């Protein structure tokens, strides 16, 4: 189970609303490489994973991603608070506004709603950890792209924190891959699937 901590993992304090930025940053909530997909990916992959260390990493990174989607949502919320209709029109925020007003909804920057098709839980240790490594890099690239688009230091600061976390998670998943491989047949990592083939882990 989970229990709520009434605080953000890292402060988000944005003085100036800016719906144009909200439109691109929302992608890290509900987009193809966003925090919602990240969290669901790792938390779903845990159940058939045979190695305790790797289950620990998936559980704790998956939990941190929940904290990250709260941070991304806080950024989008603060960027869209007290908007006037003029500001909505000037910033091209109308398509989001007409569907969600100033509510927070998981969509990509392109407007496509969140889809579980953006992640996998394949039930094969090597396959899943390889996906996780790639996922952290894709999220890192997205944060790099956001940083190219954003000048406001109030927005850049929490985005830089989130970007940095992708690197740490990548590091931990690298260790998770090593742990999986250490438990497998060193001559052929693919000789069996430790999440499925009975008695082999």
């Amino acid at each position: 189970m989970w229990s709520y901590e009434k605080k953000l993992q890292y402060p988000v304090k944005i003085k100036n609303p800016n719906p144009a930025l909200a439109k691109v940053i929302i992608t890290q909530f509900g987009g193809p490489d966003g925090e919602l997909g990240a969290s669901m990916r790792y938390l779903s992959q845990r159940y058939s994973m045979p190695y305790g260390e790797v289950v620990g990493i998936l559980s704790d990174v998956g939990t941190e991603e929940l904290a990250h989607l709260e941070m991304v949502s806080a950024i989008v919320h603060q960027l869209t608070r007290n908007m006037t209709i003029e500001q909505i029109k000037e910033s091209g925020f109308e398509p989001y506004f007409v569907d969600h007003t100033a509510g927070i909804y998981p969509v990509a920057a392109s407007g496509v709603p969140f889809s579980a098709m953006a992640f996998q839980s394949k039930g094969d240790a090597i396959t899943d950890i390889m996906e996780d490594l790639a996922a952290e890099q894709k999220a890192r690239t997205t944060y790099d792209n956001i940083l190219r688009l954003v000048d406001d230091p109030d927005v850049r600061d929490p985005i830089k924190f989130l970007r940095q976390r992708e690197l740490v998670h990548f590091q931990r998943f690298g260790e998770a891959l090593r742990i999986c491989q250490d438990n497998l047949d060193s001559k052929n990592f693919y000789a069996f699937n430790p999440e499925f083939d009975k008695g082999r882990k």
Partner: protein
Amino acid sequence: MNKEKEKLMKMLQAMDFAIYETALFLDANPKNKRALDYFKKAREMRDQIREQYVEKYGAVNFGTIHGESWDWVETPWPWQYEG
């Protein structure tokens, strides 16, 4: 948000971060004694800071609710901008 509250919250966030980061390292390196010692030390420091924060500004989770009224719904939510 007043400066004192902001400062204490930042310290709490920093200590919780240290604990979390060490826990994640320990998941992958469970036999690392130095990391485990650091984890316990950091958790002790976090508990002290959390106690100070909670006493002045209210609960941060169900475990720290001690008041006579349910002010959980009155203290600000973390995404609310406080200038």
